[in-house]
């Protein structure tokens, strides 16, 4: 530091330490409560020394909420969203930055506006669309009179129907349909020197070749950051999976947590609930700890 401030330094250490304790305490409490037996966890005050039933509780929580397949579902969904975002955003950003076609600005704004309205806000109609993902196109055909025309000409009645409830695509696709990643790539593409593009063109590279061989390898850092942040974001989704997975087979680990809330009658099984919570919060925590650099970078870059 610039000058000696022993008193203030002491104060700084104290506050930061308190902040650290408050930050860590809930994790610790969950882990400790998960290791107690039913009687100890309901003791007031609960003992802060770990009990001996940790693996038993983990096992019980695992089977009660059927966490194995649910964690797999969560993983598929999170990986799908992350991969989809990384790929589709790159394609769109490339289109917006490197081409001049009529309506480009319009497309830019069309995509930009999606940043404003999160999925939670338009949840009811999105649900209806996912129930039959072709319904918008059916409606367009109906309104424009095309379906009448097709029926007259070919005798086939047009009724498009494709339900995505209880499917991985239903879980994943609506979460990809926002602009978050597009602007991250756009910012980066704008900093790529024009000379590089010129050189590539001079060597005879077309748009596709330039994109795959030059632009994508250059954006590796962006991809890691975006992928990390999207993986976490998708893993932590709650409302959307809760709605569209009416069938247990596609439920995710986070939505299954609700099964573990102790019921009011009887002695609450907090030890089991905390063991389940620990299992569900561990994967994202591991990602944050291991991918910290990308996480912070992605967070700051996607939001700005």
């Amino acid at each position, binding site marked *: *530091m*610039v*000058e000696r401030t022993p008193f203030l330094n002491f104060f700084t250490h104290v506050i*930061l330490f308190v902040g*650290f304790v*408050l930050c860590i305490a*809930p*994790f610790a*409490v*969950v882990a400790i*409560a998960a290791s107690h037996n039913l009687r100890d*966890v*309901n003791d007031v005050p*609960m003992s802060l020394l770990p009990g001996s039933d940790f693996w038993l509780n983990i096992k019980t929580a695992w089977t009660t909420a059927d966490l194995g397949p649910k964690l797999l579902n969560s993983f598929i969904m999170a990986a799908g969203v992350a991969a989809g975002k990384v790929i*589709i*955003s790159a394609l769109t950003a490339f*289109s*917006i930055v*490197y*081409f001049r*076609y009529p309506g*480009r600005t319009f*497309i830019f704004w069309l*995509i930009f506006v*999606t940043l*404003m*309205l*999160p999925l*939670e*806000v338009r*949840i*009811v109609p999105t649900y209806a*669309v996912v129930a039959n993902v072709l319904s*918008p196109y059916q409606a367009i055909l109906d309104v424009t009179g095309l379906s009448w025309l097709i029926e007259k000409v070919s005798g086939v009645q047009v009724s498009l129907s494709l339900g995505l409830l209880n499917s991985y695509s239903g879980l994943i*696709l609506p979460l990809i*349909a926002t*602009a978050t990643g597009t602007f991250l790539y756009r910012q980066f593409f*704008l900093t790529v020197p*024009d000379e590089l*593009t010129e050189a590539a063109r001079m060597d005879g590279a*077309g748009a*596709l070749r330039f994109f795959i061989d030059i632009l994508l390898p250059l954006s590796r850092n962006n991809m890691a950051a975006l992928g990390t942040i999207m993986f*976490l974001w998708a*893993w*932590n989704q709650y409302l959307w999976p809760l709605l569209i997975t009416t069938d247990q087979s596609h439920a995710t680990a986070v939505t299954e947590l*609700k099964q573990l*809330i102790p019921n009011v009658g009887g002695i*609450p099984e*907090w030890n089991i609930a*905390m063991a389940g*919570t620990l299992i*569900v*919060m561990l994967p*994202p*925590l591991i*990602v*944050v700890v291991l991918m910290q650099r990308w*996480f912070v970078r992605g967070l*700051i870059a996607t939001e*700005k």
Partner: protein
Amino acid sequence: MEKRVTFSSWTIGILFAVPQLLLIFTFFYWPAGQAVYWSLTLQQPWGGGNIWVGLDNFRSILANADYWNSITASLVFAGISTGLAMFVGLVLAALTDRQLTGSRFYRVVLIWPYGIAAPALAMAFRFILAPEAGFMAVVNQVWPGFWDPGLDGTDAMASIIIAFSWKYVGYNFIFFLAAFQAIPRSLIEAAAMDGSGVVRRFWDIQFPLITPTIFFLLVINITESFQDSFGIVDIMTSGGPANATNLMVYKIYSDGFKGLDYSGAAAQSIILMVLIVVLTIFQFRFIERRVHYR
């Protein structure tokens, strides 16, 4: 900003944008339009299409005391949790930025909570703040009946605020720290040479320089408090007791999917959309300012 060198083929260019456009048309624009349509019509109870009712859905919602209660609860929640999370995040970031021994360590650990799913941390806090077990039970033993989120609306509101703030302190911390570290060291050192102390430097140099970040986080925290609160409310209180924590998104969910009142839920969605769009536009104005600031 524009590229000087571009590719000439229109078709390839548009093809690259097609996947994204299809997705946002199907899952964004169509549902958003649908919400507007539903909010202006009423579904017949036995099928048979929607009848046009104009602004009646909005009128009946705005005349409904439950809805105003939900708005008030959302605003109280947004205001207190944003204030708490931002204040604590700011203090921790300012102190970490002093770069004493161990600040590296805090930089790593303090952002962990943000990685946790809202329902998972809600579950943890449901236990920690439970009146009969956990830690508030100790307080209840000393003062019986002091704390019961299951019966007392204020306690329930306090619980969800604590859970939400705990998560977002880490988030604000990251952004504040980044903002502090973007301030040139030479500015701080020059001020120190001129004899200003740590506190003076904070208020006269660092604080004014991070105001854009403060505005930015203010908006993000408020909008997140509308969205990310759903999981917390659903796990901790289910909107109760007596609707004390029935926040706006939770009410849309329960009216639309439990009460099957699509028109009412759609009208509520529209109101929330307008609210968030206004906030976002507000934020973009400040982002503009930030660009000119440096």
